[in-house]
């Protein structure tokens, strides 16, 4: 029994602890369940979902970079119907917050997805307006405050009682402004960062390594950028912030929480260690115990600038 209270509240959701498996790096949960008990997670954000099935991009879809990776999966997924039919039954058995990450070609698609999902046994919808790998990944909406505000305000009414989390792209001049637009549009929370657009070249074939030419950079390499953005956003908005980007251990998560994140997501870390989320969770607990804190709320946003 621990005396530390790890639970956090985000937009009306109560999470056991602040650690959420990030979208696109935990499938629909099944495979990870072979490695640890998913019920220990604060939450799980499943693989980006679209209305229709998507094949995804041409391989190779991954390139390794110093302390990071580029990926160009391109939202391969079976589509909404198959998700509800094949994946949801398993997810429903889990005692953890279930977030469904959605992407669309048009506002209508986002709305339809939200409407259908709002009637499902899930806990929240994460609006992906930041996937750099497909034109249809919402990035066209996600790069301007106007675009974000518009799409969020269009989708929000279709979410019913489910909180709407808006996932932001870091590939912008002023992420604080974008987050504010999401809030204005009716977002219940924001999550950041999605991946940074990058490219790696095979110098002998003189071709990009990725079949899709470009890919999204994630992993420890981007952590300092992500922490800065979480700080900027959390000063600008009133809604909760979920932070991610390069978290592989408890100490990384603490940086994000001090910078203002109420919860964190672990993405690339899971590719290296299937149980990375648990390691991060243990690390958070250790930190709180070592520094004599009773709850996560004692540290969220407690960074003091010089």
């Amino acid at each position: 029994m621990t005396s530390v209270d790890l639970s956090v509240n985000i937009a009306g959701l109560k999470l056991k602890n602040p650690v959420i498996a990030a979208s696109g790096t935990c499938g629909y949960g099944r495979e990870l369940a072979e490695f640890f008990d998913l019920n220990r997670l604060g939450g799980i954000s499943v693989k980006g979902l679209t209305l229709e099935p998507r094949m995804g991009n041409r391989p190779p879809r991954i390139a390794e970079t110093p302390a990071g990776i580029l990926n160009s999966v391109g939202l391969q997924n079976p589509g909404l119907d198959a998700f509800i039919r094949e994946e949801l039954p398993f997810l429903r058995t889990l005692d953890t917050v279930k977030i469904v990450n959605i992407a669309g070609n048009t506002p209508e698609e986002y709305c339809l997805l939200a409407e259908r999902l709002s009637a499902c046994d899930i806990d929240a919808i994460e609006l992906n307006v930041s996937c750099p790998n497909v034109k249809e990944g919402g990035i066209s909406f996600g790069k301007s405050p106007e675009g974000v505000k518009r799409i969020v305000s269009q989708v929000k009414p279709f979410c019913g009682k489910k909180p709407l989390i808006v996932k932001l792209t870091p590939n912008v001049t002023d992420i604080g402004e974008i987050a504010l637009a999401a809030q204005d549009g009716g977002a219940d929370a924001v999550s950041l960062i999605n991946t940074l657009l990058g490219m790696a070249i095979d110098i002998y074939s003189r071709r990009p390594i990725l079949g899709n030419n470009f890919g999204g950079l994630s992993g420890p390499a981007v952590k300092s950028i992500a922490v800065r953005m979480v700080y900027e956003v959390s000063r600008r908005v009133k809604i909760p912030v979920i932070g991610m980007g390069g978290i592989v251990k408890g100490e990384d998560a603490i940086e994000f929480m001090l910078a203002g994140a109420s919860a964190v997501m672990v993405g690339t870390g899971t590719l290296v260690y299937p149980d990375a989320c648990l390691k991060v969770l243990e690390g958070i607990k250790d930190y709180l115990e070592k520094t004599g804190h009773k709850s996560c709320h004692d540290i969220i946003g407690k960074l003091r600038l010089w």
Partner: protein
Amino acid sequence: MSRQLTGRVIENRQIGQDVFKITVESELVSQNALPGQFANVRCGRGLTPLLRRPFSICSVDREKGSFDLGYQVRGEGTRLLSETAPGSQLDFIAPLGKPFSACGGFDRIAVVGGGIGVFPLLFLLQIFKCRESSAFLGFRSSEQAVLLDEFSRHSGRLVISTDDGSLGEKGLVTRAFERELDKRAFDMIYACGPVPMLKEVGRIADERGLKCQVSLEQRMGCGIGVCYVCACKVKRQGKEEYLRTCREGPVFWSREVVWDD
């Protein structure tokens, strides 16, 4: 079920030019691994290289409770692996992936391997008991030719080809394989190696209506099926789709693979 494991390195030695074999203690892997499955290995300890590296299981020793991986030093990851000292702990996830289809019903099998593709085939020959087995192995030259003793011990017939003719016959392993096919009947072909070789083996098998499985490589992220980066295009019931090489593969039926993706 695969697990996130650590095991003591028993031996790690060079067996050919740039080629090494590492022996790692693991009761679980030695008891449960099947031919065609792989281990996803953390080659360094820091953040570069970040990702694990996949290597096919090359053999197991069920008595000693250990398994072998054969690997060629190519980049940073395999270089670090080659420097791993016996006695230290290796961090790996295994056994992963779909194994080769067992030869339960197959009487006469052929394995066709090229370069580092030979490793999973040795394990297959060790485990799959059948009436007759032939091994066709191709290497760039004699310096790259490895594990020949082991292969000759575990196969009824061993044919070696090298690109430069420095060992066995000169030329592509697929040529030796095709010639032999005209003389001899096989129920099942297993192949692993470079894509052009696999494609050719598949063509040869298809032409003759022979069953053929190939083990494919693809750049991987997780190796456990969560990230969907390791796509392999296959055609099933007329429909093309991307399957996960780490989960639905690395072994595929050659006639399902869409080679020119």
